[in-house]
């Protein structure tokens, strides 16, 4: 079984994003970019399934600007076998991404897609579900555990108030939650080896996908800042303030 893992290049999670002065978006020029943390978990799970003999090949795909090839090299250094870069504008919408991935699916015929549950830049949490819908496949979202047996995949999903187990017919789409695994670091020799692994470049237009945006960003603003608080010296003072000043207890 082949596993396809879509990965996204995003502003590094340690960086505090800055809203551009003209309100057109968030500053990305000259900012450190890295692989979306949920996608690292997805790559790790796919590589583990290969190590267990469940998967035969792990193909990583990224959709975006030329520099996304760095993200793909990182995924290959973690153990993915080859990569596909689909060139498009920076950060296309989930609907367009899902359509590109559907086209890739027709070409690659995977048994499983593993995605991150959401990208930490647009916080959409939609691409996996949309891809599953377009393909008519089952979806195991917010996966905390994945087990492949007898042509099906058992997914333990993180839900409000606990977990839920669902069984999906293969092929299927799984989206990784934080607790699915602890992604490995790529070692230097593996980073070197990843440079020689195949990376194919395609254009979104050539896949027949309309990349036009459905959502226009009218403006991006800083959230309202909280006014500075005070430090209190004792528990007694805190209780007094909560009772008489904030009136919350």
């Amino acid at each position, binding site marked *: 079984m082949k596993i396809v893992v879509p990965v996204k290049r995003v*502003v590094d999670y340690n960086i505090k*994003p800055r*809203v551009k002065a003209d309100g057109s978006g968030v500053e990305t020029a000259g900012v450190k970019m890295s692989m979306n943390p949920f996608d690292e978990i997805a790559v790790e799970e796919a590589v583990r399934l290969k190590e267990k003999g469940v998967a035969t090949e792990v193909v990583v795909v990224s959709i975006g600007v030329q520099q996304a090839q760095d993200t793909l090299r990182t995924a290959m250094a973690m153990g993915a076998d080859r990569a596909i870069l689909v060139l498009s504008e920076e950060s296309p919408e*989930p*609907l367009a991404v*899902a359509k590109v991935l559907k086209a890739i699916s027709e070409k690659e015929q995977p048994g499983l897609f593993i995605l991150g*549950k*959401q990208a*930490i*830049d*647009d*916080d*959409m*949490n*939609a691409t996996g*579900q*949309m*891809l*599953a*819908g*377009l393909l008519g496949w*089952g*979806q195991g*979202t917010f996966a905390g555990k994945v087990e492949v047996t007898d042509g099906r995949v058992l997914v333990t999903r*993180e*839900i*409000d*108030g*606990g*977990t*839920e*187990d*669902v*069984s*999906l*017919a293969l092929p*299927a789409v799984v989206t990784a*939650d934080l*607790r699915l695994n602890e992604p490995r670091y790529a070692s230097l020799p593996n980073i070197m080896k990843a440079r020689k692994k195949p990376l194919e470049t395609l254009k979104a237009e050539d896949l027949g996908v309309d990349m036009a945006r*459905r*959502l*226009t*960003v*009218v*403006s*991006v*603003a*800083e*959230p309202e800042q*909280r006014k*500075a*608080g*005070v*430090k*209190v010296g004792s*528990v007694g003072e805190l*209780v007094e303030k*909560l009772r008489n000043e*904030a009136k*919350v207890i």
Partner: protein
Amino acid sequence: MTALVLLDHEEGRIRKSALSAVTAAAQLGDVHVLVAGDAAVAQAAAAISGVSKVLHAADAQYAHELAEPLAALIVSLAGGYDQIIAAAGAVGKNVLPRAAALLDVQPIPEVVRIVDAETFVRPIYAGNALATVRSSDAKKVLTVRGSAFDAAPAEGGSAPVEAVAPAANPNVSEFVAVHLSESERPELESARVVVSGGRGLQSEEKFHILEPLADKLGAAIGASRAAVDSGFVPNEFQVGQTGKIVAPELYLAFGISGAIQHLAGMKDSRVIVAVNKDPEAPIFQVADYGIEGDLFEVVPALTAALS
């Protein structure tokens, strides 16, 4: 204009966040709600103030709110609606994007403000920025953040309940089991007070120190990702970008440093109290009241002071 709200429920009860989705929908026009599964929930839904019709799909395939049959059902009903809305909980986030793809619509997740029928405000970058977006899709599919809209009153309405036919089940998924955590405390997302612990609590045993305080305040207990990853509490306690988003009257953070991803889940709380040994902890930048000190001294003292 008429909006269809997917009303998610658990063990025969309508989730409070679903009532917030009704409030959001009412800002756009007439509100119909869809209840899949439980008939008693459909009856309860008829009494929600502001709802003009309840669509009830009774078929057994909807019992566990699986995405595949539920999205197919929504798509079969979508023709008559301008908006399809759900609360941004585990069910809404799972089902609505799938339905949106089938309708060829780009969904708009976690809406915190409705500007007009085309324009919506949503947080991006873990709540570090607010984007106002205008949708060109003929139909809008959105999930709304429960903490950003008041819950619609659960009583006062008298909407008719109409049975709807099931849609063809794609038959690609099966429910196996659910494991819910037992808790007598208020639900984290709707609690008036939240008492939260982080890595500073040190262990699962020591985390219990927060319980008497939570009991005194009638509070829900929350946790940072660090506390969850260290195994102090199960992950449904997690407050943050990747856990629950809360906005209580009072949020007390003990031993939580205040990483961006945690702040995204609680910085809309009305009053924030932080107790931390580290005077430089970022949590103090958002706290209304801070105590620089050892939580193992502060928590019992605070619990005693409230007696």
